[in-house]
């Protein structure tokens, strides 16, 4: 089987998110099952600008063939103004305005789309739904198209151009049931073949150092938030919640943000921001955390919550985020908050009750082993793709060859 993935960024420099998930699937298809995988992507690393920084052309990364193309345009300067204007009533925005939003969001990749039409893959997987290459590519491919939406309840999902994007998919691969329910609530695509797959967790590769040693925080106990330090991911909210928590409950507890930084957080002696760290340091930090916090309301899965559970660390997640709440609820591995009040009480309860932490962490650990173990997960994905290929291209395309 030959599989093509279409994704806006690709490579070890890209941490987490949909692009990281695409890379994990691609590499496991190659390494575990011996399939041929090629990637159609850009030369960008930075999701805020989509600036071309990597060389265009074809290369190999961990056995996966990567085709990189320059973008005709990155994120437009007027994007954030346009984005602000569509936020209040996105479903009322015209098709023309919606298309303008897609282009302004970038990256605009006509060369990539031309090359994709010539792909000899048996199936093309688009990951995620949000970007130009998916919107304009999914109805141009001749092969069966799988859409990994990685959808959140965000204004863009309600924009008109995405109706065609979802309608052109031959199958969906969802991270969670909550994501599927969200998509089906917004778009009439419930009959389309689908799988709720989730993501596999990476092997833990810590160096065995104490987390505090990696963080340089001495003997201080800490809670951890792994992922992009971004206002839209709830990082600023969490920092403010934590500062208020510490003001009301003085102690030597610290909060460690672990991940690339794209927003400024309020300064505090109790907050440590590591920036990008390697996998070994990340796992060492997670291992000694008291609680793993996911403040983002906009997650379609949140692998970092699962990584906490791999180490038996309980989770505390944003209660408005359906997928992370679903995983906490299914696993019994975490709690969620929907206000500062519930954050304060839930965090206080977790910190004060080590038995509760252990029980939640153990339940999460068991859940990850049963559900998101890579050998199980990648076989399910393989069988799903084989079914999609057997079913063939069922949705109308605009390809001139059809």
């Amino acid at each position, binding site marked *: 089987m030959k599989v093509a993935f279409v994704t806006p960024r690709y490579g070890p420099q890209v941490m987490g998110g949909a692009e990281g998930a695409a890379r994990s699937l691609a590499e496991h298809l190659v390494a575990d099952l011996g399939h041929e995988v090629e990637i159609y992507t850009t030369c960008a690393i930075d999701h805020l600008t989509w600036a071309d920084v990597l060389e265009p052309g074809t290369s190999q990364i961990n056995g996966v063939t990567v085709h990189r193309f320059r973008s005709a345009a990155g994120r437009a300067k007027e994007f954030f103004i346009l984005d602000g204007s569509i936020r209040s009533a996105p479903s009322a925005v015209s098709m023309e305005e919606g298309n303008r939003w897609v282009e302004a969001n970038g990256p605009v990749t006509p060369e990539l789309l031309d090359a994709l039409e010539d792909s000899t893959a048996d199936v093309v997987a688009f990951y995620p739904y949000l970007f130009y290459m998916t919107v304009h590519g999914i109805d141009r491919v001749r092969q069966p198209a799988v859409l990994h939406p990685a959808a959140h309840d965000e204004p863009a999902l309600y924009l008109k151009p995405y109706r065609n994007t979802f309608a052109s998919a031959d199958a969906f691969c969802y991270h969670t049931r909550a994501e599927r329910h969200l998509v089906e609530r917004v778009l009439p695509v419930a009959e389309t073949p*689908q799988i709720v797959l989730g993501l596999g967790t990476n092997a833990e590769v810590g160096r065995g150092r104490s987390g505090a040693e990696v963080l340089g925080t001495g003997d201080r106990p800490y809670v951890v938030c792994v992922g992009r330090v971004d206002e839209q991911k709830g990082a600023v909210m969490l920092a403010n919640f934590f500062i*208020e928590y510490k003001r009301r409950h003085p102690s030597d507890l610290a909060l460690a943000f672990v991940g690339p930084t794209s927003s400024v957080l309020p300064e505090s002696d109790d907050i440590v921001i590591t920036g990008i760290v390697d996998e070994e340091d990340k796992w060492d930090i997670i291992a000694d955390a008291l609680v793993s916090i996911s403040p983002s309301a906009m997650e379609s899965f949140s692998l970092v919550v699962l990584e906490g559970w791999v180490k038996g660390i309980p989770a505390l997640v944003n209660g408005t985020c359906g997928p992370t709440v679903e995983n906490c609820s299914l696993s019994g591995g975490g709690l969620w908050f929907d206000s500062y009040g519930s954050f304060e009480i839930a965090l206080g309860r977790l910190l004060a009750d080590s038995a509760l932490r252990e029980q939640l962490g153990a339940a999460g650990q068991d859940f990850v082993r049963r559900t998101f173990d890579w050998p199980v997960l990648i076989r399910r994905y393989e069988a799903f793709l084989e079914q999609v290929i057997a079913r063939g291209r069922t949705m109308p395309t605009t390809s001139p060859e059809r």
Partner: protein
Amino acid sequence: MSDAAVDIDSVRSEIADEVRRRRAGGSFDALKERELEQLFHQYAPLQGRDGALAETLRAVDVTAFIDPHVPVASSQPAGTAIKRGLRKASFWYVNWIATQVTRALSTVARSLHLIDDELTDMRKSLDGLTFSGSPVIELAGAEGPSAWWAESARSLGVQAPGRVLVSACADGWLVSALVSAGVDAYGLDPRSERIMEAEIAGLDLRDDDLLDHLDAVADDRLSGMVLNGTTEALLPAQRRRLLRHIDQVLTHDAVVVIHAVHPDAVDGDDVPAELDLAGARPLRPITWVSLLEDLGFVATVELGPSESDFLVTARRGSPISAP
């Protein structure tokens, strides 16, 4: 490590009680809490989890207040002092504008709360007439691959030219049989524990309610529908909704299979309690034939061996051919 599982709902309930107790006791700083709530809701989902109107209204309340105290922090050396001066000089103006806007937004927020109250009252009234979801009615001995109607359903499903939906699919036995016969079939069953194993094994099964699912299916996208154990407990409004969906989502040559409890058998001990609790009465087979004929189907009826249940098979546009 302890092996005991934590009752998450119970812990969350205790947390919610503690939040209420502390709020009532004035433990939280209301202004600070409002500021933090604004941060929390800034990037919260559009409709909140499960589309909760109350959550959205809470966000409206939080954002209705326009703060006239413009931030003065600056990265430039004299920036803060300059900004503070400007703020002081223009405060009377900004405050006047902010007051007007806050007043207007508060009026809008109040009207939304009144609408929410009205909707809540209406929902309570409607709750007395209906209930969410449609329970599965499973007749003892009439389920699974050895059931008397299984082969008829399978052989008709095989004649469907496209995608086939099986409701109350349980462990996916019929979906699996159809897929093995080359049919593009998938299943629904709200009893998630029943589908889990087959779902992980690769069948397209979902733990969804039939009517909610059909609400999200595009027109003319299904070629067949096997409605097993999902029509008996429908109330009149839900049944009308189902018929509308049968008409709209099925193609012109689609097939329909209905396996249901016979109304003459509802007083028998074999019929599950869910049917009593639903307060609905199953339709007679002849009524289904008539309803389907109104939608352009040609239908036939087969009674089960004990006459406790029946099978209606129908094709749109032309009679069913022999298998």
